[in-house]
Every structure is written in C-alpha cells, then in structure tokens.
C-alpha cells in the first residue's frame, strides 16, 4: 500500500525510475543470452525471432522500450538535478521525461505493427 506521505508526483517519478531500472537489469541477461544464440545456435535464434513476431510480444516490447526510455530520460533529469544549477518545476521535468518516453515507445510500436 502506498503510504499517504508518498502520494506526491516526485515519489512516483522515483519509484518509476527504480522499477524500470530493476526490470531492465532483469531483461539484459536474457537479451544477451538470446543474442549469443547467433554464434552457436542460429536455428534457435531464428525460431526465437519468429516467435517475437507475435502481436503480444510486440506489445511487450513497447513496454520494454518505454521502461528503457523512461529510465534514460529520468536519469538525465536526476543528473541535471544534481549537477546543473537548481531549477524550479521539478514535477514538470519528471512529467516531461515520462511523456517523451511514452512517445518514443509509441513510435516504436507504430513502426513494429
């Protein structure tokens, strides 16, 4: 349960950055493993790529691209917060990071389908 004091936009930006980071850390070993199939088991890789053509997988990839983009732009927001002169409007920056990530992921989905 989300405690009442956490119910503010920048806490949600924090948890999104954390969760997307953990999800990407879990995804990357699988990603590299599948890429490595190209060296030893090209047939397995081909069947994997064929499997990945399914619409449900494409939609999952949309989620993956969103997580990657939101972690990237959220990370840039945090670097700016820590190393550039302070700017008011931190909630707006967090919202902009999420919005850009959503459009990047949407652009990927539109190309994929």
């Amino acid at each position, binding site marked *: 349960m989300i405690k*009442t*004091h*956490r119910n*503010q936009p*920048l806490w949600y930006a924090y948890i999104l950055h954390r969760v997307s980071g953990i999800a990407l850390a879990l995804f990357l070993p699988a990603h590299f493993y599948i890429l490595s199939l190209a060296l030893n088991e090209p047939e397995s890789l081909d069947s994997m790529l064929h499997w990945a053509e399914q619409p449900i997988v494409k939609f999952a990839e949309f989620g993956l691209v969103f997580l990657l983009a939101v972690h990237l732009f959220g990370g840039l927001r*945090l670097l700016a917060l*820590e190393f550039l002169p302070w700017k008011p409007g931190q909630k707006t920056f967090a919202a902009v990071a999420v919005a850009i990530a959503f459009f990047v992921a949407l652009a990927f989905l539109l190309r994929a389908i």
Partner: protein
Amino acid sequence: MANKGKTIKVLLSRGDNSNSALKEYEVPAKESQTVLDVVTWIQRNLEPDLSYRFACRVGMCGSCAMTVNGKPRWTCRTHVSKVMDGDTITIEPLRNMPIIKDLACDLNEFFEKWTKAKGHFVPTKTRDDSVQIISPKEKSRREANAGIECINCGVCYASCDVVENDASYLGPAALNRAWTLVNDVRDGGRIERLKAVTGDGGCQSCHSQQGCTTYCPNTLNPTRSIAGLKKAAAIATLKGEM
C-alpha cells in the same frame, strides 16, 4: 457561528513505542480551528495525561509537528478545515522517530545527526578582528539564505523514506544545515564538513524523492541543498581537497 453544535471525529494515537493505538474522540468544531487546538482541547477536557509538545503556537519554534491524516505537518498552523478527511481527522506522532508517549517523539537522534553533519559554525576570526562585510547579493550568501529559516520541526525527517530505511542517513534537515554553512564564506570548516556529509549515511544516499521539499512547512528546499552538497563534494574530490 456556522459551526455551533457541530463536532469532528478525531482519531488520536495513544501509547508508546511498544504499544500504541488510535483512540476516538468527539471534539467541538470551531471556526479557524487548528490541529493543535484540537489536541489541546482533548487534553484539557478529556485526557489530562495526553502527552504532546508545543510552545509558540505561531510557527516559530518547530515543536508541534505531528502526522495529520498520514502527512507530516506543523499542527499550530494547519487548519482542521483544510486537512479533514470527510468528518475525521487522524493525529499521530511523527514517523521515523521513537515515540516517548502519545504524540511526543524522541528527537535525540534527529539532533545528534545535526552534530554528526558538523552543523556548527567554525569561526575564522576573533573578536579583535573587524566585522566582515557580506553582501546579501553574493551567490554564496543567497544559497545560504535559502536554507537558514529551518525551525528544526522534523517534518522533513519524518517524510523521508531514506531515513526510514537507513538508520545512518543524516536526513534532510541536518544536510540542509550543512549546506548553509558550506556557503558561509566566514566559516572555516568547509572540507571537514563535506567529509562528514559524504559516504555512509551522507548526502549521496538521497534518492531525490523530494518529500522533504513537498512537506517543509517553511517552504525550504532540502533536496536542493542536498544536491548542492553532492556537487560540492564531487568537485572537492576531483580537486583532491578531500
């Protein structure tokens, strides 16, 4: 009087660290009533042994902070009408601190962390020197001024998830204090202070959730101060000063 005869339902935390529970009270509703007014009414009329802290009642002393409907607030300047959840108001002690009794918390650790963060001024002149002229327009003075109105209420400390999960974390108030001194050109303890606020439990532990800034009743920005410390510590490290 529009509120004549009306009452509000108050759920108040009673007990100590080992055994606390919410107890329900009916309190007469008044115009411009603050949360502190409610607590005081309960103590004077229903529960003479109710423990809580207050002093100035005007937002100067920082002693009356409590958790009101789940959020940390200064109770003397929080109007009941603005924080009511339906017809109910829940009043608990601040989070992240041991409860002594009822609404009174033990702030020892909170203030010990101010000491650990070297929150004391280190003079560089003696009484024989002339008074140093500091322009309020200087960048460093403006940075320091932005953080010096802290009233030590503990609201930021209670709202911080890092404090909750890391017992060694100095917390937003102590780090904000350190930042004001780092920007004080008269102070001689800059590098020692940056060392004290770096590393385990230091400024780098902050996750920039900005709960401290969201809830600070004096609208200070401890996240900005902590970000300033991170940057100052990084630059000092690169320069080989620490």
